[in-house]
């Protein structure tokens, strides 16, 4: 796996980890019980994808998935700004979900054609699970697509899909929460 491929996988892994954390923020407080269940499951899948992607890169670098996920500083993450935002309103949550899943599907299609069989194999597995996320996003998109608040949210968030490198202050806040327990433990502590 060359450096460019590793960077690409890290970019996707970071997106999946961070969007998974954001999705999990609906656990227990979503407006419908079904959505509480759905966003919790989606979060679990996304973080599982992140772990598998980190593992592929970690093997190349003699590191662990946890080290890649949690021991970098916030500035080193390669995620897009769209996944970083803490969104506690439904129209922007669904808008991000729809935009993200659409963009994720495109890059997975490319990765499935990778010359590296490990990358192509993992992308194919991830895509099987993502198919259910896409159906969920489409279902909500169909329901909301004529609502002005929802279309405004799509317009607001779409440009953030491509913005990487310069992070929002929200990423640093999330990083504090996400790594707090790990940072408070002596190195090598086993759970």
């Amino acid at each position, binding site marked *: 796996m060359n450096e460019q491929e590793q960077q690409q996988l890290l970019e996707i892994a970071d997106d999946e980890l961070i969007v998974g954390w954001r999705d999990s923020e609906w656990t227990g407080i979503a407006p419908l019980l*079904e959505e509480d*269940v*759905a966003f*919790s*499951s*989606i979060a*679990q*899948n*996304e*973080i*599982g*994808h992140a*772990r*598998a992607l980190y*593992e*592929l890169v970690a093997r190349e670098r003699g590191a662990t998935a946890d080290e890649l996920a949690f021991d970098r500083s916030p500035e080193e993450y390669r995620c897009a700004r769209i996944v970083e935002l803490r969104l506690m309103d439904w129209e922007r949550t669904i808008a991000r979900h729809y935009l993200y899943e659409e963009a994720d599907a495109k890059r997975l299609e490319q990765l499935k054609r990778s010359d590296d*069989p*490990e990358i192509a*194999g*993992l992308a*194919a*597995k*991830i*895509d*099987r*699970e993502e*198919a*259910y996320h*896409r*159906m*969920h996003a*489409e*279902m909500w998109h169909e329901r909301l697509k004529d609502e002005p608040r929802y279309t405004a949210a799509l317009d607001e968030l779409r440009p953030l899909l491509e913005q990487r490198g310069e992070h929002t202050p929200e990423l640093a806040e999330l990083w504090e929460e996400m790594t707090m327990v790990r940072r408070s433990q002596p190195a090598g502590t086993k759970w």
Partner: protein
Amino acid sequence: MVTPQQVWDALAEIPDPEIPVISLVELGVVQEVEVRDGHVRIDFTPTFLGCPALEVMSDAMADRIRALGAEPEINVCLDDSWSTDRITAEGREKLRASGFAPPAPRGAAAPTLVQLQSNAHRCPYCGSTETQLENIFGPTPCRSLRYCATCRQPFEQFKSI
């Protein structure tokens, strides 16, 4: 000296941690068993990548192999080699008998919302196909929730992967 058959038999006794009515072998997550000089390598392919039971399964397999007097190596395959099509016929029947509707066969293309919303899915309790999709997601990532209009019973449908 341990034989591959002894290993398969031992693995067939490990229940799935979340749905203990079926074994890991019936679930189809064991791809290959290789025995060499008291060393057993198992190619193990996860169901869903975010499944929290992965480590429990790996540890349970390693323990069984040690109990056979061999050294285990659990190789986790991060590829597309597991599908719900790998659940054995016995495994599917055990799922159904426990109230989990077994998965439909994996299609060439990804499943669609129209398919999930169609009433082609059979209720595991009464056999009716008058069922409707309640939620694409369920208590674990591998299941959806459906409702049977005939026996008025909600049930869990395995997703096709």
